[in-house]
């Protein structure tokens, strides 16, 4: 094994430029995949945390009277796994609005009557998806006294659509870059093989087995994959450290938004994938050459 590693390192050294190009290509592919994974991991976490509340506001019709509240609560409880139902009267709602708009509350004083509806704020105990919340909200909306239900369907739905679109783009880009890296790796191995054709012919004449001949190429492919993966991760980490604090600060005034780097498992998965890429490129190339 040491012999094969030494041989592979010597080959990498003698074809420095070609190997450098391959390693950089692999690292760029890994970088693209990692950027998407970083985005998905963080976006998923944000969506999860937003969803965690599982909150919905139920706005009631003007015919609502306080004596209807117990019955309404019972009805809502039968529709889903509700953790808490809080009644917010129209008066409380207006007071809260005035408080929130303290600087611009002058126009609220001009109102002759309170335009806000009575409302119920509910929090679901558990749910698995946004669709589940949506379905639950629709069943509440069907209650006669309920005017409307708001559960973030606008922005959350839109965000999920963008997120899913990004996911598809991400998969497409990752596949494309994977194929490019695979092609470059396979081509490097092919060139290395042809540049050593005479050497391989001599090795065969002195009794080298095919395994003995192929092994250094595989080691070379694995090393290229590993180095490409490491380089890609290092570039991502540097970029992350430079950019993440800025993004966190920009979002700090709107929400708690904490960008995290890829988990150890994901990094290990990416490096393994990169090593596989090097090996697979080598495998395809040798399979074709030695056919």
């Amino acid at each position, binding site marked *: 094994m040491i*012999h094969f590693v030494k041989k592979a390192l010597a080959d990498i050294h*003698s074809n420095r430029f070609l190997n450098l190009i391959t390693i950089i290509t692999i690292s760029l592919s890994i970088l693209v995949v990692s950027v998407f994974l970083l985005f998905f991991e963080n976006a998923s976490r944000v969506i999860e945390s937003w969803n965690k509340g599982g909150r919905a506001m139920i706005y009631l019709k003007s015919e609502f009277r306080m004596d209807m509240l117990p019955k309404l609560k019972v009805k809502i409880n039968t529709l889903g796994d509700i953790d808490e139902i809080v009644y917010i009267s129209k008066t409380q709602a207006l007071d809260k609005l005035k408080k929130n708009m303290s600087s611009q509350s002058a126009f609220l004083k001009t109102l002759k009557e309170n335009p806000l509806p009575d409302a119920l704020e509910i929090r679901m105990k558990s749910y698995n998806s946004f669709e589940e919340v949506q379905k639950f909200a629709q069943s509440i909306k069907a209650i006669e006294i309920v005017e409307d239900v708001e559960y973030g369907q606008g922005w959350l739905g839109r965000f999920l659509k963008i997120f899913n679109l990004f996911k598809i783009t991400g998969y497409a880009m990752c596949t494309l870059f994977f194929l490019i890296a695979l092609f470059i790796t396979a081509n490097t191995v092919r060139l290395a093989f042809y540049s050593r054709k*005479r*050497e391989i*012919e*001599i*090795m*065969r*004449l*002195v*009794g*080298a*087995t*095919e395994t*003995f001949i192929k092994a250094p190429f595989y080691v070379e492919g694995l090393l290229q994959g590993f180095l490409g993966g490491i380089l890609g991760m290092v570039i991502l980490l540097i970029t992350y450290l430079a950019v993440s604090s800025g993004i966190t600060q920009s979002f700090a005034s709107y929400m708690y938004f904490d960008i995290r780097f890829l988990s150890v498992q994901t990094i290990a998965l990416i490096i393994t994938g990169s090593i596989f890429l090097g090996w697979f490129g080598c495998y395809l190339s040798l399979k074709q050459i030695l056919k």
Partner: protein
Amino acid sequence: MNDKSNKNSIIRLFNVSKRFGGKLALKDITLDIEQGELIFISGPSGAGKSTLLKILYLAEKASEGQILIGGMNLARISSSKLPFLRRRFGMIFQDFKLIPNRTVYENVALVLEVAGEKPSFIRKKVMQVLRTIGMEKKFKALPPTLSGGEQQRVAVARAVVGQPSIILADEPTGSLDLKSAQIILDSLMEYHKKGATVLIVSHNLHLLESTVRSRNVEISEGTIKRIATIC
């Protein structure tokens, strides 16, 4: 022309023919070579001498006939077994076939590396053979920096380092001056004396005068024309 079979035969050819397209390069060759024998295969250029040698180490396959080497039928050897057959041979070529970007030491060591020998054994054995051949001081040199004679000496060292039972030499002195040719020939005789079977393909009949007891197999137009014992 046929040859009598012998119990000590290490190489046996039965009615071997080789065709390249429509052209017959070897025709009906039957030959027995004894263990420890020195054989010269001579004849004019294009007679089929090198083809005969290539068939023995399976660089080419015989179109017809049977070849037995040490009891192994070459027609039945799978590609996975081929390297193990080749390890029984030490091969020397007119164009040396040395790896240009590997040192003299690495070229010779390759034979033992492919055989899976331990590094300590390889070091000892390679340096010992290089000393015998007078190339120990140039063990770090790359083949292109050596003269033709020196390169062929390295090729001889590579051929004998694995202590093969058969040495196949295809025009080993073809591109060398007389002095270098004599050194190569003396080295081969040395290994022949130690018991190796040596087959030398050459069109240079001058070589035959300077050797020990041997047989000369004369080939012309793909067939054996004459087998003569030289004392």
